[in-house]
């Protein structure tokens, strides 16, 4: 398992290639990549800023991912998350999970990305030409949080 916060550009497919080769015996690898979109609600995004709580953020994500690795019997999991300033088009997050069969890897990726949206100590601010605005989880994010907690 590897959970890292990075403050500069990373290349998701390069990281995936490594993850794939480290898990050569896994029949199933599911992934999710989130990127900074160039537009939001009709406005051009000039940057995203991601605040984090040093140590605590890594610790909280690691604990959660470790639990998922056990409960879903994953062979391995990888979370790379950007912090600091992010430009449009750049990757924000990569989640990858390896397992014997697809159901576990797919469910684990979904659960981890849902967790990151509402429960990881990260704070996202979107900067547009009309100023900066803090992003809060959507109603759907909270619904998924509730259903995730109910299932666990």
């Amino acid at each position, binding site marked *: 398992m590897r959970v890292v916060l990075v403050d500069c550009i990373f290349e998701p497919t390069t990281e995936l290639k490594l993850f794939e080769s480290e898990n050569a015996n896994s029949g199933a690898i599911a992934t999710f990549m989130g990127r900074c979109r160039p537009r939001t609600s009709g406005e051009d995004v000039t940057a995203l800023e991601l*605040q984090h709580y040093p140590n605590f953020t890594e*610790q909280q994500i690691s604990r959660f991912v470790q639990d998922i690795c056990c409960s879903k019997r994953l062979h391995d999991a990888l979370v790379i998350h950007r912090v600091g300033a992010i430009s449009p088009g750049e990757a924000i997050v990569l989640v990858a999970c390896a397992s014997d069969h697809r159901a576990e890897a797919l469910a684990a990726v979904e659960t981890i990305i849902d967790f990151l949206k509402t429960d990881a100590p990260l704070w996202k601010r979107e900067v547009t030409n009309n100023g900066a605005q803090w992003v*809060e989880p959507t109603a759907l994010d909270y619904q998924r949080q509730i259903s995730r907690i109910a299932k666990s």
Partner: protein
Amino acid sequence: MRLLLFGQIRDSAEHLHDTEIISSARSVRELMGWLCQSDADLARAFDRAGLRVAVDQCFVDFDAAITPQSEVAFMSPLSGG
């Protein structure tokens, strides 16, 4: 104790983030009351939905005990991913 602010709440009281404060508060709730008296912007920020608090890097509820050595972090709604 050390005070940390994350997310929108930091904008309300940037000058208080990552500072050492001297307070006799024995719980998070007492500390919040004490901070509200000196800072109206922070008081309003505490009222917003979704506020979370961690003491010494553990999520706790507002009745949690604190000491002069505690690290207390107030957080606006989390939004990673």
